[in-house]
């Protein structure tokens, strides 16, 4: 609002320091009605957009409470016999509790990938930001090329190489590739430039701390919000990954929940009684992610803005 100082004096009343929302209606008599109309219009379109985004998820919630008969027989947003609990029991007891095993696998792959992969990326991004060395431009160029190559384009080559060295169908086949995330390195460099002032590191160095020690006791704590953002994005990316585990794993005990659900979906074609299990399993598998997104809003906002603007 300080800009009003430069505005022509005759119109300066338009921004006399009041909050922007309150300045509009004062100018002309017709203004309040038009503002009311556009308020309804603008918010109305947003409500429609929000409904489009939320209703399919809501449908899943309602569908998870129904047995096969009610799925076909009752309205989409009404309850039938409320079979949620028996559906959940069916899901977790099927195949000696294989669903829980898939969930645990997903948590393990995504957790390890997020924390260790995140740390590796933060270290690299920090080095690109804080250190000067020969070949820095070329190495960072390689990182950027890595950002631009689609993940799925390297999945089959990874499988072919993995098969040649006998690593397919092991946990390593799905963990090692996801530890390497060039986009996280790019984000980490942006965060490091923003969060860690060079002077602090210089002070730590004068105090006699080694570069590694400085990183872990000074740099990393300052980068903590950036680390959480990067780890969150990696967690979600790995949890959502489908093609890599589908290609790499044959042993269903190693499946993450995404591949498991697609396996059950295949069963449901000849056996319709699997349909409520696919729906309830899908519902259970998105709960951790939706909760994480709602609780960690601050961090995904930070990641999306750092990734695009800077």
């Amino acid at each position: 609002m300080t800009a009003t100082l430069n505005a022509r004096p005759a119109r300066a009343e338009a921004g006399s320091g009041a909050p922007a929302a309150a300045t509009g209606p004062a100018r002309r008599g017709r203004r309040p009605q038009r503002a009311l109309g556009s308020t309804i219009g603008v918010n109305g379109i947003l409500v429609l957009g929000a409904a489009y985004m939320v209703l399919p998820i809501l449908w899943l919630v309602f569908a998870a409470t129904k047995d096969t008969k009610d799925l076909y027989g009752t309205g989409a947003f009404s309850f039938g016999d409320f079979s949620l609990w028996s559906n959940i029991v069916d899901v977790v007891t099927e195949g000696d509790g294989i669903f829980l095993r898939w969930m645990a696998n997903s948590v393990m792959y995504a957790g390890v990938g997020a924390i260790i992969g995140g740390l590796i990326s933060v270290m690299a991004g920090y080095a690109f930001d804080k250190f000067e060395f020969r070949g820095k431009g070329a190495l960072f160029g390689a990182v950027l090329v890595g950002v631009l190559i689609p993940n799925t384009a390297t999945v089959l080559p990874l499988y072919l190489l993995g098969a040649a060295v006998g690593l397919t169908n092991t946990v390593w086949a799905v963990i090692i590739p996801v530890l390497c995330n060039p986009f996280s390195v790019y984000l980490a460099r942006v965060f490091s430039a923003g969060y860690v002032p060079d002077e602090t590191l210089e002070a730590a160095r004068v105090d006699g701390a080694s570069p590694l020690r400085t990183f872990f006791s000074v740099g990393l704590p300052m980068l903590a919000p950036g680390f959480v953002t990067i780890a969150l994005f990696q967690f979600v990316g790995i949890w959502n990954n489908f093609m890599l585990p589908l290609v790499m794993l044959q042993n269903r005990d190693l499946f993450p929940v995404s591949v498991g659900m697609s396996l059950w979906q295949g069963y449901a074609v000849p056996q319709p009684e699997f349909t409520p299990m696919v729906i309830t399993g899908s519902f259970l598998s998105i709960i951790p992610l939706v909760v994480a997104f709602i609780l960690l809003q601050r961090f995904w906002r930070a990641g999306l803005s750092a990734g695009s603007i800077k």
Partner: protein
Amino acid sequence: MTIRHSDRPPTAAAAARRRIPGTGGRTAAIFLVPFFSLFVVAMIAPVVYAIGLSLFAQKRSGLGFGGAETVFVGLENYLNVLSSETFVGGFGRLFLYCLMYIPIMLGLALVFALLLDAIVTKAKRAFQLFLFLPHAVPGVIAALIWAYLYTPGISPIVSTLAAGGIQIDFLSVHMVLPSIVNIAVWEWTGYNVIILFTALQAVPRDILEAARVDGASELRSALSIKTPLILPALSVTLLFTVIGTLQMFTEPQILSKATTAVTSTWVPNMWAYDAAFNRNNLPQAAAASIILALLAGLLSWAVTRLSSKGRTR
């Protein structure tokens, strides 16, 4: 891509840093070795191996005994892949898909971002969260949800339309591509809304204030001031959308179990998967993957060039 760092002029701090011991190459190596070892193992080595593999093929020896042997065939696999009708057809579908998906998704994202930024909008944070929520749903689950929402008998959409006298088979040969576009729009619009909205927040408020004082309506300043100012963010979202489109695999793979309209070689990625696991032709699968990676690189390069040109104009 707007990469701020590579072209940033060296600041005084950076110049001073260069003289400080312990910030040079040897120290940097400790921090960079973990990432770049993984980079070599997980990105470079597989691609190099796949290129190598794609230059060979299994051939029967001339007299028919001794089984198959591996012989060097040069670019023959690439020619075979590129002349395969199903592979090229997959690209045709991807192209049609892009024509529908990119304008709809980015257009919606821009509209929602501008609306969120409008002064009269209430409950901005809640709307952002609702719009973003589908992105928290994994692609597999999103495809499963919509597959059911397209299935007659279960779907409330199909039954509502039928009650209104409209019969649409979302999973028919002609409708399945728009149906997949809808799934992708649902998954990605909110994500891009947040990126564009964050960019809008960075638009200097005094410019907008000046426009308002000069009598520009909010709609006018949204279209002629805000939108041009966030073109860099728009081009980043366009770049990542184009890269993402080439990756298409999950949604059609899931829908292929719900409808026969989606074949096992429906898009290039599925073609490559099918080559590796159903046709057992690993060299062709390798060649197809390399073609996809090259094309992605080429497209990214083109989009980056175009958008940086647009900005300097």
